[in-house]
């Protein structure tokens, strides 16, 4: 190796070492350990763990709570992701349009991002409270029949989704806003000269140009869909009857309330599987289609 090449390697590795060490210690090692632990049954009261082979996985398939939670999480993802992304895009377009009070609009859309979820969940709890909660006051004003928003299996998850969308949309909006500002105005002028309507301009020019941003946001939204559980602690604790429980919350319960670490590891592995799958699909399939640069 030449002098230059040697310098390069030594320096590069030195710079990387601290960060890499931490990342490996808190991402890769635990991921591998999770895999190993999923083959063990936890010992109680300080007893050593017992190797049980695939039993945890077998149990996974019989565990109705798990199946329900999994279903919930998929519903949660398929609710929050498209909703928050499309709302973010709409917000960005509105904010970008220089409407009166632009700064206030931006502030209002973005503020949820800054507030701690755990705190605002309490406020949402009020909104969802039956009888006199805000939603109910509006509802009774409109004269619909009462809904026990968080207390009913059919609506609890919807509420959870609503809060998540509220929280995320403003954050994603910033990315769209940044991307929109990079679209040269001359493209719009060219399209206008060609006779394109407003709808046509957005559909044929703007949305395709935002695709790379959408990909980025999509990745983040997907991760969030499997990560965002803070509001569950306040709003429903996963109930009623696990109707609003999500995978990570279930992992928390299994691992830290029931201390079934082995099964917790198995569940974590499922979660990792989903995240991995999502990333492969997103980077592998979608990226090929959206890339234009």
């Amino acid at each position, binding site marked *: 190796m030449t002098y230059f090449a040697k310098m390069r390697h030594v320096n590069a590795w030195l710079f990387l070492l601290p960060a890499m060490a931490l990342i490996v210690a808190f991402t890769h090692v635990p991921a591998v350990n999770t895999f190993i632990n999923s083959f063990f049954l936890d010992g109680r009261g300080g007893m050593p763990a017992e190797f049980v082979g695939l039993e945890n996985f077998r149990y996974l398939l019989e565990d109705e709570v798990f199946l329900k939670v999994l279903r919930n999480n998929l519903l949660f993802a398929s609710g929050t992701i498209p909703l928050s992304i499309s709302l973010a895009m709409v917000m960005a377009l509105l904010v970008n349009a220089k409407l009166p009070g632009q700064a206030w609009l931006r502030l209002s859309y973005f503020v949820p991002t800054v507030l701690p979820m755990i705190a605002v969940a309490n406020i949402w709890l009020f909104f969802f409270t039956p009888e006199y909660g805000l939603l109910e006051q509006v509802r009774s004003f409109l004269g619909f029949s009462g809904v026990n928003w968080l207390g009913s299996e059919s609506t609890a998850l919807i509420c959870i989704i609503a809060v998540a969308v509220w929280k995320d949309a403003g954050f994603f909006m910033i990315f769209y806003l940044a991307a929109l500002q990079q679209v*040269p105005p001359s493209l719009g*002028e*060219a399209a206008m*000269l060609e*006779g394109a309507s407003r709808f046509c301009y957005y559909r044929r020019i703007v949305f395709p140009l935002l*695709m790379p941003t959408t990909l980025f946001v999509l990745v983040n939204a997907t991760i969030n869909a499997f990560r965002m559980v803070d509001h569950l602690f306040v709003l429903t604790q996963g109930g009623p009857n696990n109707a609003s429980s999500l995978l990570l919350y279930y992992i928390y319960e299994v691992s830290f309330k029931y201390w079934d670490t082995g099964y917790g590891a198995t569940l974590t592995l499922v979660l990792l599987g989903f995240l991995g799958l999502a990333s492969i699909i997103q980077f592998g399939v979608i990226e090929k289609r959206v890339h234009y640069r």
Partner: protein
Amino acid sequence: MSAIRMEHVSRHWGSVLAVDDISFEVEQGSLLVLLGPSGCGKSTTLRLIAGLEEVTSGHIFIGDKQVTNLPPSRRQLAMVFQSYALFPHLTVRENILFGLKVRKVPQAERRKRLARAVDILGLGSLLDRKPSALSGGQQQRVALGRALVAEASVCLMDEPLSNLDAKLRQEMRREIRALQQSLGMTMVYVTHDQVEAMSMADRIILLEGGRIVQNGTPAELFSQPATVFTANFIGTPPMNLLGLSRCSCGITIAGCDEARVPQADSADRILGIRPEHLFFDPEGGWHGIVETVEYLGFGSVVTCRVGSEALAVSVEGMVTLAPGSQVTLRYLQDRLHFFHKQTGERV
């Protein structure tokens, strides 16, 4: 009939008079160049024609129709932008056909027009590429293609060549001009490059500070600049503009008793003379000292000091005159220009 007519058109932004009471006509099938230094209002004028800006006052006609209040999409004209404004996510084909699709032109017709444009512009092999995979010149041609298929009778271009390198620019210039002539398009072309303007235009409108300085053919601007501004703007290197003074022996170049200018009727004039019309000639009447010699490719420019004024002299090829050498200069008698010292206007 004129293809475009502007009547007392103005466009102000607050106190900025970007375009200030401009009137002109563009003849059907001709190429008009809007020329002027940066910020003089060229782009604004063009965008007013296109409808991308609203007039503050005045009227705009395209053909015989007043379009002052029509939106751009209904003015039926094509435009090529400085940065081409190609849609980066669409292929060349889709870019060219964009407007036709939007306007719901039937498939067969679309195909026909595309084929024709592709043929004219030689884009055949590029149709499925994205703009990012094209060179500047190719992008330029796609932008032209988009304008062509619209089959609008008027085509506007805003500095379409300024992003290209010198060689390509020259080629494209030729190509655009040929196309415009063969298709009989009416074209308004914006540039700040006088060479480009001179080599392409049927007519040139020279703008300064939002107002028209001179409106004429290239030859007129070259040989009869209406003002010092025009004289200084047209030609490479620009016309020498020399101060005069009166001394015992008549009117001379300022600071030099013997460089006489018998044609001058007053010392209160500025003498204009192009570097091409000056020659090193032992029989010449002006004595000067060489200051710098610059090779400029096409030839060289020798700067000489005569009196208190510096004169540029064009010479072909490479020259080997050392700075400091003494020279005598001869000038073409019938190529002198005189301007009022105060107003800058041609005498």
